[in-house]
């Protein structure tokens, strides 16, 4: 036997050894690192094992800020049943899970699925013990910022009409109520699946976050912000309001065609004079108005716990854009916004110009030990205006409620600030809007209300906002 051949065979042995041990090394690497990516990634929907495993886990409960149960799971005859004690008002927030209805997942049930299944921070020893014993595991509880009492009230105030109410704390962004009407009963979703899904009223649409509406006159908050920021002298101008204005041959009228005569900036805001605000908008020009709209996030998808529609503020063309600029100044034309965005808009003057990031999940806790596993810390989202401008807008909004279109929102003993809107739309009667906050000197709650085809904002939407604020502030 040749010596060289023996040497070659030994080299080959080394090669094969490396091959085999690289397999073992890769397997270890896979188990330690790649595997976790596999479970957390979106591809895991293709992994039927997870669904099997999840059936064994008792899904966590969902609570409101005061500890009221919004969703809980119980075992009946070996099967997990999901119960929603306050089903209808919360259906569009809580949503449903594919673990219960195979067709899909929405809402909080979808966003905090992993938490509800207890798949975060599971103590390895507990996990091991439970796996050995084949015990069913318990998911974690999710506590929301919403107030059940407020949510129920808001939903009942909408009274079956199509619309939405958003209430939030302007200092933190914590959402206090997020009602969307009409809704459905999630407790009977299984039996009524196709009826619910094909409902002509779109009951599964969360109008507060996914409904897109023209803002109408509540947009004047943004126009006023732009004026006070970019052309502060407009604040001292007077406008000759004859009830209408003609822009490039198009006639734009005031609501109900009222002529206010010669009025100042403040009065124009109180009475929501379209004529004056078209003139303000034309003075500001497209770039200023667009800049301020963008600062308020009107071309953004608001970051939120549940899906939101993207707001639309189409840019105004440089040539022949005068009519669109005029319409945009009063919140008409091509602008489309969600009620959530309008609540955030109103929270800028309420919070010194700073809009906090809205959130629904307050914290996640272990149901047995009570240990807090995740907690949302409030953070800044936008800062469209300075404190100075914010305070001026706040004063304007106080005027609206005290002596303008929003008197229906007054609460005895509390200063309320607000703005009404009556949005023209192609689907019939105008949409009624109201945004406002109270108490004006130390705002604790911001409310945005829309009633589809509800007519004048001052008479339809403002009272709803008043009741919600009243209830929250304890009057």
């Amino acid at each position: 036997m040749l010596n060289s051949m023996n040497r070659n065979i030994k080299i080959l042995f080394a090669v094969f050894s490396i091959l085999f041990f690289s397999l073992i090394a890769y397997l270890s690497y896979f188990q330690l690192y790649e595997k976790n990516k596999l479970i957390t990634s979106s591809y895991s929907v293709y992994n039927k094992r997870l669904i099997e495993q999840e059936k064994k886990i008792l899904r966590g409960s969902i609570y409101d800020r005061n500890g009221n149960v919004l969703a809980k799971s119980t075992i009946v005859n070996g099967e997990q049943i999901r119960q929603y004690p306050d089903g209808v008002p919360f259906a569009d927030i809580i949503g449903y899970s594919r673990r219960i209805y195979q067709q899909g997942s929405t809402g909080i049930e979808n966003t905090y699925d992993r938490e509800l299944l207890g798949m975060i921070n599971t103590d390895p020893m507990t996990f091991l013990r439970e796996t050995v014993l084949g015990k069913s595991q318990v998911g974690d509880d999710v506590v929301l910022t919403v107030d059940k009492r407020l949510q129920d009230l808001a939903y009942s105030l909408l009274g079956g009409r199509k619309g939405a109410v958003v209430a939030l704390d302007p200092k933190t962004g914590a959402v206090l109520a997020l009602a969307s009407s009409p809704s459905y009963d999630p407790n009977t979703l299984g039996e009524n699946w196709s009826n619910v899904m094909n409902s002509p009223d779109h009951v599964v649409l969360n109008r507060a976050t996914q409904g897109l509406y023209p803002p109408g006159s509540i947009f004047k908050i943004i126009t006023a912000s732009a004026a006070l920021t970019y052309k502060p002298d407009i604040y001292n101008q007077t406008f000759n309001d004859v009830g209408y204005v003609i822009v490039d041959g198009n006639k734009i009228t005031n609501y109900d065609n009222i002529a206010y005569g010669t009025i100042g900036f403040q009065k124009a805001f109180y009475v929501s004079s379209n004529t004056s605000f078209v003139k303000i908008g034309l003075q500001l020009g497209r770039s200023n108005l667009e800049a301020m709209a963008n600062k308020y996030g009107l071309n953004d998808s608001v970051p939120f716990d549940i899906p939101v529609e993207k707001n639309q503020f189409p840019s105004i063309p440089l040539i022949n854009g005068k009519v669109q600029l005029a319409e945009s100044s009063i919140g008409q034309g091509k602008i489309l916004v969600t009620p959530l965005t309008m609540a955030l808009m109103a929270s800028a003057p309420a919070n010194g110009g700073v809009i906090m990031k809205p959130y629904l999940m307050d914290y996640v806790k272990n149901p047995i030990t009570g240990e807090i596993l995740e907690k949302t810390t409030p953070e800044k989202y936008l800062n469209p205006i300075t404190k100075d401008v914010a305070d001026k807008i706040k004063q304007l909004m106080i005027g609206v409620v005290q002596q303008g279109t929003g008197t229906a929102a007054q609460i005895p003993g509390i200063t309320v600030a607000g703005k009404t809107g009556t949005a023209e739309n192609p689907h019939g009667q105008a949409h009624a809007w109201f945004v406002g906050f109270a108490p004006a000197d130390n705002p604790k709650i911001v409310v945005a209300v829309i009633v589809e085809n509800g007519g004048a904002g001052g008479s339809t939407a403002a009272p709803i906002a008043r009741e919600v604020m009243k209830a929250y502030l304890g009057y």
Partner: protein
Amino acid sequence: MYQLAANILKYVLLLLIYLFLYRVFKIIYLDIKGVRKEREVTKAKLVSLSGMGSFNLFEVTTIGRADDCDIVVENPYVSSKHAMIRKKGKKYIIQDLNSTNGTFVNGKRVKNIARLKNEDVIKLGNEEYRFLI
């Protein structure tokens, strides 16, 4: 119930699998190192009855015509690896390695393994030895 059993037995099975592996690697270890152990000389010996001298026996001794046998027999009747004598505890046994002409102890053909006693006569092909402790 099945779950509990499967969960516990999973560790038992893994334990057994690794016990198996341990033994497999032990065999390799014995293979590499054991050669030296097999070289240890014992007090037993074979004395050729045809006057070819006497041979000390190791823990394991192979007898045959091949060069790598411990006791090399230049005899065409002997197979290249004819037989093996090994120490088992205090006893000695002889094993035929499928030789063509067979291994005989005191005239009886060894089918597989036979025990050796002092003064036994071993015949490989036509070579005869006396086994002495």
